[in-house]
């Protein structure tokens, strides 16, 4: 071997040495459904970002498995007689990852940033007259009107959960992403080891003081029982199942239902960790023909039926359920007002409505998101149903990111616009009129679809300040009826994903988000 060759080989070896870092066998290795992109859980409503948030941030309150609000960072709180002044006291031992104590000022700054972004937070901000921290341990919220949903808003796990960040981080404008990932949660994010699209590393936070109650959903003790969590990105569902079978990973958030036969049940337990699941739904564009005509919108709702769509998407009825409730089935504000309109396909009724409206064949631009596996069959089947009812349909395939830019286009279909888009929300995100984006009907400046039905907004405000649960329930039912009648949106049913966990993993908690405290690894 010549000297040159040896030098070349040494160089090569160095390059290869830089290619990967060693991994420890005791790590918990998890694979989630899609990749972690944005790391700002206030800016992004992505569930991957939210689950990242639950690892490193703590919340003031947490929902427990009975959906009751339980204090988490808060030790105690009081509400004034008129329901307008809330006063909170933080519990002992709260520290940031850098060792500094969590103060009430941090909390106030965090609430303010969240209140500009989250739909429920914005509603709360609109009736807030004062938010202040009299001392390091206490903060107070003063409202102009009493509201029954303050604690729910602070505790809710979806949409944008109220994660508490240091005041310096929470000072970031809400249009800009945070770059400092200091939290006070049970795990610490190793920002230096983060490789987007490859892996993210979380280490146990030795300073975290858990509550004494038993863990339940987002409430109770958050005990980190593994030293390190390695989140690995595997874009291909098949690879992920094989990796789970072979023990290369310990936890797989989503097993593609068609790949269930491949799962080695001797090694892996499959479970629905999040039984609440997701609502699939679609919104119509009210600004452009053909959906400028209310009867044509109604025709579309009648033309589309849930059964065929969910069957094509999920194959086995065990993996989905049909549901005509705008605010989720089996949830507090479930209602069956006008449910038949969104559940069953009735092409005859749709045809009659189209004839009445003198539908002129203006094509329906149906956006088909092709890169989200849980939505891949929805739009094609919808197109087939709409065509069967006499609609002319242009199926516009695009990936999710393109959809975001395309959806902002308010022009006609012929000029890059659209008529229908399909999306999914977690059931906890749509379970009441305040957090539900699908019912939003506040015209051109609001959520895509741009329906302008002031009645829905008025009823939503009534909901915010309603005194009793019965009152709220009645209001929710009325909103649902109006939303369907006006063709603002329609639900398509709901599904819950199946997760897979290796047999040597213990203590995995059910919750409507993926949480990693309390999990331990045998022999790890």
């Amino acid at each position, binding site marked *: 071997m010549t000297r040159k060759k040896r030098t070349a080989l040494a160089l090569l070896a160095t390059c290869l040495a830089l290619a*990967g870092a060693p991994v420890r066998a005791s790590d918990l290795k998890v694979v989630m459904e899609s990749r972690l992109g944005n790391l700002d859980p206030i800016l992004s409503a992505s569930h991957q970002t939210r689950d990242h948030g639950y690892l490193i941030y703590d919340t003031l309150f947490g929902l427990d498995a009975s959906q009751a609000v339980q204090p988490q960072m808060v030790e105690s709180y009081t509400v004034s007689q008129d329901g307008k002044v809330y006063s909170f006291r933080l519990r002992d031992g709260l520290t940031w990852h850098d060792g500094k104590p969590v103060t009430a000022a941090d909390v106030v700054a965090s609430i303010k940033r969240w209140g500009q972004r989250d739909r429920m937070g914005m509603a709360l901000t609109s009736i807030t007259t004062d938010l202040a921290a009299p001392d390091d341990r206490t903060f107070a919220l003063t409202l102009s009107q009493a509201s029954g949903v303050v604690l729910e808003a602070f505790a809710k796990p979806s949409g944008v959960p109220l994660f508490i960040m240091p005041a310096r981080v929470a000072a970031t404008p809400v249009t800009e*992403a945070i770059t400092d990932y200091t939290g006070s949660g049970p795990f610490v994010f190793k920002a230096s080891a*983060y490789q*987007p699209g490859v892996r993210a590393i979380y280490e146990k936070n030795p300073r975290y003081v858990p509550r004494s109650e038993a863990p339940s959903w987002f409430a109770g003790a958050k005990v980190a029982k593994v030293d390190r969590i390695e989140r690995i990105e595997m874009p*291909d569902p098949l690879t992920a199942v094989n*990796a789970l079978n072979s023990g290369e990973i310990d936890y797989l958030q989503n097993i593609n239902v068609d790949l269930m036969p491949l799962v080695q049940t001797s090694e892996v337990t499959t479970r629905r960790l999040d039984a609440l699941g997701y609502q699939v739904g679609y919104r119509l564009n009210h600004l452009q023909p053909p959906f400028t005509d209310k009867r044509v919108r109604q025709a579309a709702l009648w033309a589309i039926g849930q059964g065929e769509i969910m069957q094509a998407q999920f194959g086995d009825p065990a993996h989905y359920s049909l549901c005509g409730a705008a605010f989720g089935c089996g949830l507090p504000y479930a209602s069956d007002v006008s449910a038949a309109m969104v559940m069953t396909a009735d092409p005859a009724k749709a045809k009659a409505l189209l004839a009445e409206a003198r539908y002129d064949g203006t094509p329906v631009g149906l956006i088909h998101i092709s890169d989200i596996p849980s939505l891949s069959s929805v739009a094609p089947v919808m197109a087939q149903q709409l065509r069967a009812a006499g609609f002319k349909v242009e199926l516009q395939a695009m990936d999710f*990111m393109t959809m975001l830019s395309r959806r902002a286009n308010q022009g006609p279909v012929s000029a890059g616009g659209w008529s229908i888009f399909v*999306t999914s929300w977690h059931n906890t995100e749509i379970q009441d009129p305040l957090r539900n984006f699908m019912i939003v009907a506040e015209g051109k*400046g609001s959520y895509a679809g741009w329906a302008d039905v002031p009645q829905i907004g008025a009823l939503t405000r009534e909901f915010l300040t309603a005194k009793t649960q019965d009152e709220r329930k009645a209001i929710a039912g009325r909103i649902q009826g109006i939303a369907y009648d006006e063709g603002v949106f329609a639900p398509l049913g709901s599904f819950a994903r199946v997760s897979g966990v290796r047999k040597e993993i213990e203590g995995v908690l059910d919750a409507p988000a993926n949480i990693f405290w309390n999990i331990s690894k045998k022999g790890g």
Partner: protein
Amino acid sequence: MLGYLARRVAMTLPVMGVVALIVFALLHLAPGDPASIMAGDAASPAELAEIRARLGLDAPLAVQFVTWLGQILQGNLGLSLHSHKPVAEMIGSRLGPTFSLAVATVTVSLLVAIPMGVYAAWRRGRLSDRLVMAVAVLGFSTPVFVVGYGLIYLLSLKAGWFPVQGFTALTTDPVRFLRTATLPTLTLSTVYIALVARITRSSVLEVLGEDFVRTARAKGVPEARIVLRHALRNAAVPIVTVVGSGAAFLIGGVVVTESVFNIPGLGRLVVESVLARDYPLIQSLILLLSLVYILINLAVDVLYTVFDPRIRY
């Protein structure tokens, strides 16, 4: 020689300039909107406008181009729209797998293809020649992902010799590296083997027809010695050329292969960034891959003078 080298390097500069212009035009004349990508699912029109202003997207295109070029030249590739990490860092963390895959592929290809080509030339016109060449054509015509899935099906799923997908770095676990890198390397090698085997065969044939070979034969030099000594040596220039120009196939193949085998390298980063419309990342990746390609071909030109002293510039 040095003068030639300097001229040759200088010639690549305008090419890089044109590449930069194309890349910029490609992404800025396109209808996609980086602001709506950053703002996410529930952004309001007002927020979008604010983000656009902050990113400088409302400045005239010429100004944006000059600003961007200036930053690139200073080594500032910008931040990813999604992860907000420096693009250079993201690319850097993906170099390892792609580099080891490319090196392994070129090595394997040359080791397999040159003997194949020489053998075919030596047995020209016979059945074994046709067979070897048929394999080469097949390798060139079969899409990389079909080869990949074929290998996975036979050697992973049926035989169980290799893991289905995934990648382990050499330094993490050398044995596992070999197990995970074998199939992607074979997959990527098919095109290269086909190219190199064919060029080897035809150049060896060409040399075998020349006068000095005839003379050597007449003098009774053994055929094997003629093929290995004279023919192969003279075939080096075309082989090096094909390895250089084939780098384009290699880069394209890397994109597909890393996607088939889920290897976290540059190729998968290209697909990820494109699907996520991460414009700064896409721009830098195209620039980098083009630069690599240009440099490889520069190296090839320089190698000519080494292999073939007759070439003078």
